């Protein structure tokens, strides 16, 4: 049974980093993308904001149950998996790392802020950034905050440092198409890939982007 092997820790620099606002679908993307790559057991290498590390192994379905939640800020550390990206006769190993959700304002909980600080530190050393945004929320009438100031700042910061793409997520939901247009207008010079972390659409394009740039 293929597994996602875990790598080293932490604030550990490099690799492919998933960032974005809380509830944009980052963790579901991590799990289902690993699933898409043939991983059955997810070896998660979790680094908590205090620098300590833990490893967990879950079957993919169990990982979804435990790590994905409708409530924001479920992810409170860096959680990474090592994946093998095959193409033709070649294969690239890379580390895909999920981060705590960012917010436009100051969050009241100290451990959420610590996770955000950890995400910003990791962002400084990332080799490739996948910025997840909620396209369905961006396309809804009440879209305030769906594309936040923090998203603009992430785009400005990350795109100058390493390969960077926006993943317009939740394309399986109504209004996501309108949201995708809005995101593309907001970030005209950035690569925007429409995806659904839920049903896997767009994963092929993400794989090609990672292959070409990592």
């Amino acid at each position: 049974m293929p597994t996602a092997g875990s790598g080293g820790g932490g604030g550990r620099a490099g690799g492919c980093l998933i960032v974005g606002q809380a509830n944009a679908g980052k963790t579901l993307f991590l799990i289902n993308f690993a699933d898409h790559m043939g991983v059955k057991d997810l070896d998660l290498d979790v680094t908590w904001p205090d620098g300590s590390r833990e490893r967990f192994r879950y079957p993919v379905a169990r990982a979804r149950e435990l790590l994905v939640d409708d409530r924001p800020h479920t992810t409170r550390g860096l959680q990474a998996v090592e994946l093998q990206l095959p193409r033709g006769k070649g294969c690239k190993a890379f580390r895909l790392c999920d981060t705590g959700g960012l917010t436009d304002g100051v969050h009241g909980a100290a451990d959420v802020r610590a996770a955000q600080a950890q995400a910003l530190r990791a962002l400084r050393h990332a080799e490739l950034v996948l910025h997840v945004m909620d396209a369905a929320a961006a396309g809804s009438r009440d879209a305030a905050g769906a594309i936040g100031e923090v998203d603009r700042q992430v785009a400005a910061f990350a795109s100058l440092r390493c390969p960077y793409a926006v993943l317009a997520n939740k394309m399986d939901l109504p209004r996501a198409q309108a949201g995708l247009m809005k995101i593309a207008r907001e970030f005209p010079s950035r690569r925007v890939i429409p995806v659904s972390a839920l049903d896997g659409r767009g994963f092929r394009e993400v794989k090609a982007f990672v292959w070409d740039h990592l």
Partner: protein
Amino acid sequence: MDKAWRPKGPNAPDSIEEVIGWLETGKVSPAEAFRLFADVEQARSPGAAAPPAGAAATGRAGAPTAQELRRVLEEIHGLIGLDRIKELIQELQAFVEVQRRRQAAGLTAEPVVLHMVFRGNPGTGKTTVARSLGRLFKEMGVLEKGHLVEVERADLVGEYIGHTAQKTREQIRRALGGILFVDEAYSLARGGEKDFGKEAIDVLVKAMEDHRANLVVILAGYRDEMEWFLRQNPGLRSRFPIHLDFPDYAVEELVRIAEHMATRRDYRLTDEARLELARLLRRPEAAGAAGCGNARLVRNIVERAIRRQAVRLVRENRHRREDLMRITAADLEGALAQAGVPGEAGTPPGFRSDSGFDLLRQVTAFMATEMGNNRRAAGNGLPA
């Protein structure tokens, strides 16, 4: 929202780490933090970018770098316990600085070789210290980036001929400018001569020579296993001039660590909770587990107590701020068992004999101890 607040002049942040600190303490939002990153970088950019490897820690970028250096040192000294390690870090800092001054004065300077071996149980602070050292060496201009790349056998050793060298070189490439931290390094020698682990060691040793100016390698693991590992590879010992032992934390230190962890999350341990925690940690089962967990065990206990406190507050329907912050002794009940330490709820310490007489003697001794404890607790004004 946040275009309003952006400190300038003397209140402007000196470094990106300072901005991240502000984010952690709630002084700025993530969006503001990114803007301040840009400000910091702009302030450093006109010829005053981060000093290259080997540059002095003062000069055009001197003020912010010196401040950052002070901050890193303060952080290291703020770590609980680890006294011997703090002393050694001070020695290292002084040594590097003096070698630099000697070089500037045209005197023979000793080569600064900073590869290290860390020996100690898990949870004794090895990774934390390594991370702080990375930042320290960066601020001192010894390393360009100062980041930490943490790897273990699986990250270095491949499955077929040539794979190991490729994997190890890849990790070294990622660590250039910083620290390569090889956790459980002894496992590289566990397969003997024919194992690919040997190849990983050879590649590592070569990289330490090739990149001596811009890479620090730290080998870490249990004390005995690391001794065995160095005996198996006699050439390694001389290449790692710095050997640090990380002792297990004392119970008092573990309690202070627990308090620190709780405070960071806006919780407070009551006096009874502190006493209860110390009592739990002194139990033989915990002492055995602390060797395998140490600060990590304490974190598990604190997290468990936070969950139990939540259940208690919901049950008691309490909403006052102090109640929400307070962790009591009752919240620690069953904490060891939940933290994966067997035997807490079972027999008290010492109850291991099968002999009836021994058992009776131990029961008596145990009761006497407990009564003494209760009297002492009552004497301290605490519930017995």
